[in-house]
């Protein structure tokens, strides 16, 4: 049972990445557009209650890829909606506050400290 959890995380997480790779290789979509598509599709899938089963099955395999970020936002909105209008509006960011906050603050500090490096090819 325990090992199955890891296998599902690997398969679902890898599978979502393969979808991204196929989009990158076969369409003219740039990486930012693909990121947007993934996040919005995560929001829409969770809005239709379709993403929760994937999360229940694969755990971090479903929450670590970007659709999981959209799922997180939508889940906050839907949980908040049960309490009231204001909670429905604050819910998405409340759920994602830690991730967004750290990404902004730590990203800013890191980019102020480090100088640009040309990648080794």
């Amino acid at each position, binding site marked *: 049972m325990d090992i199955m959890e890891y296998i599902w995380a690997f398969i679902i997480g890898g599978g979502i990445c393969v979808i991204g790779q196929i989009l990158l290789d076969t369409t003219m979509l740039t990486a930012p557009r693909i*990121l947007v598509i993934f996040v919005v599709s*995560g929001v829409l899938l969770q809005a239709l209650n379709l993403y929760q089963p994937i999360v229940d099955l694969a*755990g971090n*395999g479903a929450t670590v*890829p970007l659709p999981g970020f959209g799922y997180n936002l939508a889940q906050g909105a*839907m949980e908040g909606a049960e309490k009231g209008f204001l909670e429905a509006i604050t819910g*998405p960011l409340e759920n994602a506050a830690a991730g967004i906050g750290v990404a902004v603050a730590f990203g800013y500090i890191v*980019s102020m400290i480090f100088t640009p490096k040309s990648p080794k090819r």
Partner: protein
Amino acid sequence: MPTRINIDGGKEQEKNNARKKKEIAKAYGRYAKQFTPRPRYLANCLKAFFTGGAICTLALAAQNYLTGSRGLSQQDAGTYVTIGLIVIAQLLTAFGVFDVIAKFAGAGVIVPITGFANSMVAPAIEYKKEGPVLGAGAKLFTVAGPVLVCGITSSMVVGIIYWFIERQAG
């Protein structure tokens, strides 16, 4: 009369020129295609699958460690794992290692939250010479901005729709 003929001739010539240009462009396209490497679909997909899967599995292992040995709740552990992935990805970006990994793994590291973290730091470092506000501060959001805007907008609409349904039902 002669002027009219002239104009017609000019038009004809223009048409000819345009046709010639199009043909040249087409020929160039065919020529360039011979040298453009076709993406190796299968190899790229396999690389993306294994790196993406590995990241998710490691995240799950970290999550299970936090909930098991440290006794954190599932939600708190998930938050810590997300924070950890973001911090690691941003540090790797700053050291110039992320590019090397991304070159190999492609979508395998772009689609997980690591790609989101990388997309913030990479342009911010690149443009830091333009100043701390309009350079690093603004460029932090060249990619993350649209992602956040679309994600927050769509989820807020979902929340309001759910609230409306809830109110109608209750």
